């Protein structure tokens, strides 16, 4: 990926993935990463935007570590 492509946001570096069968609705992800994740009426995450911008990558990794059931992942997108 070129610097220019990253600068204009053409190719996001990383994306959030939730294993929906593992998720138990603890909600820590939305607490740590409200910019990208909100909760539904039952406490299950709604990912507003799966693409993680560089400036939120640190928080996203903390959210991944905080999930008690390891349902959240940050995955590099192919070519990213």
């Amino acid at each position, binding site marked *: 990926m070129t610097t220019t492509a990253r600068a204009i946001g053409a190719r996001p570096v990383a994306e959030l993935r939730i294993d929906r*069968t*593992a998720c138990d609705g603890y909600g820590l992800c939305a607490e740590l990463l409200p910019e990208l994740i909100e909760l*539904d*009426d*039952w406490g299950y995450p709604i990912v507003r935007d799966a693409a993680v911008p560089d400036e939120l990558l640190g928080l996203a990794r903390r959210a991944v570590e905080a999930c008690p059931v390891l349902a959240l992942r940050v995955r590099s997108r192919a070519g990213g």
Partner: protein
Amino acid sequence: MTAVTPSRSLSNGLFAGRPMAAGPELIGEHTARLGPLPGPEATRDLIPALELSGLLGRGGAGFPVGRKWRSIAERSDGRAVVLANGAEGEPLSAKDRAVMTLRPHAVLDGVLLAARVVGADEAILYIGAEHRAARRSLATALAERPLPLTVRIVDAPDRYVAGEESAAVHFVNDGDARPTNVPPRPYERGVGGRPTLVQNVESLAYAGLIARRGSDWFRAASQAGPAGLGMVTLAGVAHPGAREIEMGAPLGEIVGPSGARQETTQAVLIGGYFGRWATAAEAWDLALDPAAMRRAGLAFGCGVVSVLGTDECGLEMTGRILGYLAEQSAAQCGPCVFGLRAIADAAGRLAGRSGTPDDLARIERWGGQLAGRGACRHPDGAAGLLQSSFKIFGEEWQRHARSRTCSFAGQPARAA
């Protein structure tokens, strides 16, 4: 459940030959009509032919068949598995049963060709346990012909999600017919960890015809557009059941001979329980062609066309389907367990004239939050149905919520 009813058959399709009412086509009749199974020489280019034919998977998702076969052939190393999907858990659909029961050798042709072309050494016929006639017919057909590989029958549990492709693989591997979180997808790692072609039985049967007659024949067999021939199931009409059609035919021309008239039709549910509602005016001239339907915001899906009369309440049917889908959830993912359940309960109250404007506001909000939030597409299917009902029956939803009255009260529901 809709029954298989006899109808005039297309002269060039799966159901040419023995009338539908006369039971399964025997191997002798099948071979006399279509010729023997093409040999390896003739099917060396079958994958490109399928790609050119434009054949789309007929299980509901509409994925291109040739591309799917290619992705497995590239990985197989001769050890792939072919899983013929005849689970047909969709309550309004009867077409897979019709194909399996009445044209078992056409299905087996497709299975054997797929196995040869993608490089499989095992095949599984995954048949809904409740579809006994289909199972019997395929078991008989298996005994009637030589088989170059192991073919076994696996009874699919009678659950809506059991036919979802990762659920089918999960069941064969572990006896658990619930979808798994993907990836890996079955074409990468499926039955026994091997690349697995999960293909609907109707799609396999048409692949067998394309292998004999070529991609040009298939594309030209449509009435309009390139989608070839296809199976539909008609419901809510005087003569319900499975039909083979020339794709691209206007919907009105298909349901008309079965007893439906536009003047007495309020709306049409297209694509089954995961489908979309359309008004009679939108639906009647709609070409039953996947591309044309997509442009209209609809989907061919598994080919269900269910007619709602001008004397029936669309909310009643929508609420009943949502209740069924909530009950049939695999209960693995929170948004389905809680969200879909709550939507179904509120929609059921509103349909039954005991709901409130708050119920309606909530299901509008919740309906917009469901899509993409399950391991499988179950919540997406339910959300699509609900949202199309807002579009088509918007005033009726308001009426039920605000005044707890129904424009059709007292009229018994007719459709399945």
